[in-house]
């Protein structure tokens, strides 16, 4: 079980190898990549930044939750920060288990929770030369309205 913020390209094959074991019959991998269009705007790249220490801590918490919920015995997450070009991987999650159900369930849980809770941010660069922080909570970042209710925690999970 490992969760790391990295500043270099992510090697998906290395993550697959990291979770490999003869005890596993199933390995699931998720790769998030920089897309050329978002919300109808042409994107030329994305700058990712993170509160790295907290991001790793939160990702480890999510991994531990997945271990309890799904019994996954091997899982690893890498999230990249820095300037990423189109098609480059921003996040890779590998999960493995004796059977496919837990491997697939844990993989989806990890990416969903990561997107809700892990303090990583992205600023999209557009073809018109502008750039903007992405706020998946709805409003564009800094648009005035609060992104979250007072005291609310991302994801609504009980991790006080």
């Amino acid at each position, binding site marked *: 079980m490992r969760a790391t913020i990295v500043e270099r390209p992510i090697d998906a094959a290395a993550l697959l190898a990291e979770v490999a074991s003869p005890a596993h019959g199933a390995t699931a991998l998720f790769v998030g990549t920089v897309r050329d269009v978002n919300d109808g705007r042409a994107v030329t790249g994305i700058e990712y930044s993170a509160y790295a220490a907290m991001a790793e801590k939160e990702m480890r918490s999510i991994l531990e939750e997945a271990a309890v919920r799904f019994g996954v015995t091997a899982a690893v997450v890498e999230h990249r920060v820095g300037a990423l070009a189109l098609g480059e991987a921003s996040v890779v999650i590998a999960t493995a288990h004796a059977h496919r159900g837990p491997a697939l369930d844990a993989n989806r849980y990890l990416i969903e929770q990561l997107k*809700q809770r892990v303090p990583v941010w992205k600023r999209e660069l557009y073809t018109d030369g502008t750039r903007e922080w992405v706020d998946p909570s709805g409003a564009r970042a800094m648009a005035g309205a609060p992104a979250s209710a007072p005291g609310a925690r991302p994801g609504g999970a009980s991790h006080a």
Partner: protein
Amino acid sequence: MVPVVTRVLLFASYADALGTSAIDVALPERATVADLLAEVRALAAAHALPPAPLVAVNQEYAALDVVLREGDEIAIIPPVAGG
């Protein structure tokens, strides 16, 4: 009570908005996260922040009633957008 000057980390859009990656806030002893946010809102540049941003204490999301202690690592967390 002697106010304690506490450093608060800023990231991403909040760091951009305030033009800095950290601000210093004077807080009384046993101040809570809610007290911290009230002080932050009193800053001139804070109009760029939402009324109730998320706060992390020692790298964990913290509720408004969490009491801050000297040496805590405090950060205001913009809406996350990883993945």
